[in-house]
């Protein structure tokens, strides 16, 4: 009544197990198979993970052997022969289901072989582990296998039973059927999820490699990269150049470009929150505002300004923007995003302020400081007025009652600034030399003479065909100066790339999506790839600039990575577009 578990395998032990090559082990494989083969000179290949009987618990081994022999009695007819086909017997298949899924840990390596017994043993153990791992065959429950057939004419694999979990990231539907690309099918075969049939016979992994991989589908190199990434969990799809928008279409794609701009804005903001002299509170509001809020802010600032302008001293409106630093400064804060302000803020004031009224260019009559003037404005010269318009004397007393006549109290600093301004705004008519000029030509000559004198440099340098790159008297920002005197202009990777013709050798092969996106990955809308792969081998040349340019323009803003295969080894390299930084503040 007692049946021991037949876990020890299906070989019988009927003699001495020595280390001679002709051991007495009998291999009770499936003898009725017609394509098995016979190898008389070597020990039989043991099924994975199992030890030789003479090493294992002897009693149990013998017992189980008896069981198996009984069960597979009809197989014993040819027991004199030994078969090493890598095909498992039913009992082995059954036992294989409960085998471990752990990888043996590899110990520390030694530095130099010293012929010691210890080293020899360790090597033997490592090798034994190695071979047991390598010789393991894939065994799956029929219920867990998806059945598929290979269609050689179309180089695809058609699923016969419903797809498994892999369908979320792999395969495609057409004509109401589910298909897998050959590389996907092969990978799934290797993972033990799919069994592919051809002419009603199951294909081995070897068949898969030899039939599925070809230059018209995916080469072995490409498959190696594909499988490497798949094993790491990445979602890998074939790259289809036609599905990529051309660079022109990419330019026209408004939502995309909009997104890109917003992203850039955000990045810039977080990278350098306050480059100018701004109060921290303002900086904070700037930081949390998005581009849309920015627009609102702009409007509100404009309102502020228009509110403030009426009650400011109307002496010179151009000055309000300068002395009343509040609105002007916030205006500066706004322009911080759009363009750099290098010159006077008052110059930019009209541009960033209300677009209709250029207050700095309209001279209002000075009413506030008109204590010494008569209480009325003289009428304008009638010759300047159009046609029949008559303008009389204007009484300003009602206006004066309406405006704020308080004296402007200026700090010492402000006074000094005022003085400077006064000095700068030099009335040209006080210049005696200018007054001596009788016409424009003389004035221009005078200007040129003064210019040359101010420069203090030889005029002749500018008279010739070749002139200096820069006039030192002209004040320009350092960055611009560097650009004017640079001998070779810096170039962009994508410059002129659209004209580069596609080469056959260098092509993007795969779109790669990150593993963490797998949960909500959609094949119909995979989104932005994490990167793109181009496959080459170490014996190939390094991709030239032409190839890099061509792939970069094809890929757009997604990085192209070269997967370089060196036999089993795969290394990943990328070429990055890099711009030398100009470390100058404008």
């Amino acid at each position, binding site marked *: 009544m*007692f*049946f021991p*578990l037949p876990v020890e395998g299906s070989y019988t032990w009927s003699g001495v197990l020595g280390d001679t090559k002709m051991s007495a082990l009998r291999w009770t494989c499936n003898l*009725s*198979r*017609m*394509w098995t*083969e016979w190898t008389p*000179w070597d020990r039989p290949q043991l099924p994975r993970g199992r030890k030789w009987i003479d090493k294992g618990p002897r009693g149990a081994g013998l017992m189980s052997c008896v*069981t198996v022999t009984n069960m*597979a009695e009809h197989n014993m007819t040819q027991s004199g022969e030994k078969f*090493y086909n*890598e*095909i498992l*017997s*039913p*009992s082995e*298949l*059954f036992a294989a289901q409960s*085998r471990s*899924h752990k*990888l043996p840990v590899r110990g520390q*390596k030694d530095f130099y*072989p010293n*012929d010691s017994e210890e080293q020899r043993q360790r090597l033997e153990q*490592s090798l034994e582990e*190695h*071979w047991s*791992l*390598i010789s*393991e*065959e894939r065994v*799956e*429950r*029929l*219920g867990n*296998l998806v059945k598929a057939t290979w269609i050689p004419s179309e180089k695809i694999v058609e699923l016969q039973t419903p797809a498994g979990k892999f369908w979320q990231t792999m395969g495609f539907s057409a004509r109401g059927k589910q298909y897998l690309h050959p590389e996907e099918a092969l*990978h799934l*075969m290797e*993972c*033990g999820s799919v*069994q592919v049939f051809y*002419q009603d016979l199951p294909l*081995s*992994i*070897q068949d898969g*490699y*030899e039939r599925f*991989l*070809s*230059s018209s589908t995916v*080469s*072995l190199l490409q498959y190696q990269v594909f499988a490497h990434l798949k*094993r790491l969990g990445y979602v890998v799809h074939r790259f289809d150049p036609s599905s990529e928008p051309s660079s022109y279409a990419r330019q026209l794609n408004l939502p995309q470009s909009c997104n890109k701009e917003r992203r850039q804005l955000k990045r810039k903001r977080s990278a350098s929150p306050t480059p100018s002299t701004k109060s921290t509170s303002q900086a904070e509001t700037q930081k949390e505002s998005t581009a849309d809020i920015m627009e609102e802010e702009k409007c509100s600032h404009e309102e502020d300004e228009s509110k403030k302008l009426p009650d400011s001293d109307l002496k010179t409106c151009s000055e309000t923007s300068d002395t009343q630093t509040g609105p002007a400064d916030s205006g500066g804060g706004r322009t911080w995003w759009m363009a750099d302000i290098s010159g006077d803020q008052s110059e930019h004031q009209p541009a960033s302020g209300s677009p209709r009224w250029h207050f700095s260019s309209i001279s209002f009559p000075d009413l506030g400081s008109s204590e010494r003037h008569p209480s009325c404005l003289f009428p304008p010269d009638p010759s300047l007025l159009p046609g029949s318009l008559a303008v009389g004397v204007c009484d300003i007393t009602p206006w004066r009652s309406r405006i704020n006549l308080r004296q402007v109290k200026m700090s010492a600093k402000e006074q000094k600034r005022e003085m400077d301004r006064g000095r700068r705004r030099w009335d040209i008519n006080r210049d005696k030399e200018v007054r001596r000029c009788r016409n424009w030509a003389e004035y221009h000559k005078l200007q040129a003479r003064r210019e040359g004198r101010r420069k203090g440099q030889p005029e002749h340098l500018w008279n010739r065909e070749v002139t200096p790159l820069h006039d030192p008297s002209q004040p320009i920002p350092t960055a611009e100066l560097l650009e004017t005197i640079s001998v070779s202009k810096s170039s962009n990777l994508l410059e002129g790339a659209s004209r580069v013709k596609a080469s056959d050798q260098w092509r993007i092969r795969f779109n790669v999506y990150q593993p963490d996106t797998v949960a909500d990955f959609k094949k119909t809308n995979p989104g932005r790839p994490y990167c793109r792969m181009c496959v080459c081998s170490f014996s190939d040349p390094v991709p030239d600039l032409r190839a890099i340019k061509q792939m970069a323009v094809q890929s757009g803003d997604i990085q192209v990575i070269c997967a*370089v295969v*060196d*036999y*089993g*080894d795969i*290394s990943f390299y990328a070429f990055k577009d890099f711009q030398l930084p100009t470390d100058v503040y404008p």
Partner: protein
Amino acid sequence: MEGAPRTEEPTSCRVVGISHCDSASLLWRVEDLRSVRSQGLVGSLLGSLPRTPRQNSRLGRPLQLLPEEELLLSKCHTAASLPPANQHEGGSGLVQQVALQGEERRRSYEEQSIIALEGRKSAVLRAMASSNTGSGSETCQHKAHWDSLKALDQSFTFPLSALAVQLSTARVGLAHCPESRAFLQAHWSIRVQLSQHSEARYEVFRDLRRRGFYLTSAGKFGGDFLVYPGDPLRFHAHFIAVCLSKDKPVCLLDILSVARLGSNVKKTVLLCSPGGGGVLYTSLQWSGMV
């Protein structure tokens, strides 16, 4: 260069079957893999490991051979190039094979269901044995066990979905028998026309192998071969072999870069130039001058 750890000539003359996939030479059978390894050729594994397929630290069959390894095997007459898969193309043979396969499947199902039944039974028996030793006179429990055992015998059905199926790694086929290999071996032709550099590589490979070193490809290290003093499973590589022509000038910068790289990975760079019946070795080591 110092004396080799040990010398071993490939003595085994088992013919190894090499199949070609996309110009790569692949070995599929464990027998072949073992035989090649016993000759000190390492190769590189490409496939997913059946036990844990979704990782890259340990890979499984197939094993890809370096061109030098393949050449060495073929020069020792221990390699045969196997023809591509076509065993399924036959007409009447195909029908026979399909029938055979069905028969196989059916028999496997029968046997597995017997084993599964035995497994269940023995589990019940074990439970019985433990209850016996546990608390003496629980006869009703004992009876229940006997009943369940009987019920198992009568109504046990092994679901087809639980049938264990093998997804074979290597192709099953007659092409692997020794006679056909011997035949294929006779028809061996060197597929690749050797360039000068690959000829130099082969010379270096053969010489280092003859001295007992194990070699793998060293693309990542900017050289031709990584040279191991023993089996790479147990030992670190000591050298990066760079094959150079004996009489061609070498750019100093190249030497510097390769030496610098070698010092960074704690390996010695070995400049190998075949010529004059042997191979000349020059080792480079980066040393700081104080």
